[in-house]
């Protein structure tokens, strides 16, 4: 049985080995980027079917961010939306035969979680100012400062391990059942994997929202929800 911590190196670009998760990641990026470009090229007042679905997605995403952060969702929409879509499609890559989800390898998850970590600091400084953001580390008193610093690292680490563990264990269990039982037996488990993948993508995005929202702080006036502003 292959270790989940090892990689299949497909080819080399100069001295850099390119492994399978990287290629799958590039495919997802290309696919999502192409779809977004094509569907956003011809936007109309009277929306087409694709545009309606996309508008529904953006509205639901905005409502979630607004309810969680109590801030205007516009600055956070690109990052949170991209994280949600990328993790969702990466988790569902196991549906294509022969392809492992890139999130089943710890490096992809580490890259995503490090972006959340960087975004937390960036939005914290832009939301509260450098002094205000550093002040959050000595709340409620200066005794808590080591714990607050450690929390920054441990929650990023748990974000990595959570996504990696869930997706990888799904792939692993399907592999074990397939080697024991045969062709059609793992199908219910794979259906369960679809649910787990969607839930984990949602949780990853919501936790990123919670972390960034906690760092940026609440804005003074609570913005209206979409329904109230109509």
């Amino acid at each position, binding site marked *: 049985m292959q*270790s*989940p*911590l*090892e990689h299949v190196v497909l080819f080399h670009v100069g001295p850099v080995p390119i492994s399978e998760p990287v290629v799958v990641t590039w495919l997802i990026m290309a696919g999502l980027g192409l779809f977004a470009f094509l569907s956003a090229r011809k936007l109309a007042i009277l929306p087409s079917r694709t545009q309606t679905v996309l508008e529904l997605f953006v509205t639901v995403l905005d409502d*979630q961010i607004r*309810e*969680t952060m109590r801030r205007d969702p516009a600055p956070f929409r690109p990052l949170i939306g991209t994280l949600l879509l990328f993790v969702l499609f990466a988790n569902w890559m196991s549906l294509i035969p022969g392809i492992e989800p890139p999130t089943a390898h710890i490096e992809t998850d580490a890259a995503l979680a490090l972006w959340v970590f960087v975004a937390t600091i960036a939005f914290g400084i832009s939301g509260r100012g450098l002094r205000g953001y550093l002040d959050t580390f000595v709340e409620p008193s200066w005794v808590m400062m080591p714990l607050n610093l450690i929390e920054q690292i441990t929650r990023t680490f*748990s974000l990595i*391990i*959570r996504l*990696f*563990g*869930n997706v990888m*264990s799904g792939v692993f269990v399907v592999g074990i059942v397939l080697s024991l039982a045969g062709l059609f037996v793992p199908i219910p488990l794979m259906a369960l994997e679809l649910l787990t993948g969607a*839930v*984990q993508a*949602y*949780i990853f995005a*919501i*936790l990123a929202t*919670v972390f960034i929202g906690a760092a940026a702080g609440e804005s003074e006036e609570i913005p209206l929800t979409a329904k109230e502003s109509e």
Partner: protein
Amino acid sequence: MEGNLVEIVSVLSAAIAVSFGAIGPALGEGRAVAAAMDAIARQPEAAGTLSRTLFVGLAMIETMAIYTLVIALLVLFANPFV
């Protein structure tokens, strides 16, 4: 018998880690879901907020079980003593 003592102990400890590590989070998740069901039954209009908070909380609890799984995998596949 094939395999040295370290490998045998590694496999055993991986199984023990996962099995006992799953007990606590399972009980905790059960309690959390039961409490959320109770709250939704009392106040159905708050179901959206409750289920979002529930999912985040479940993810936090589940992380404990995932940690034991990672420890088990490290012991099985990246054991520094073998």
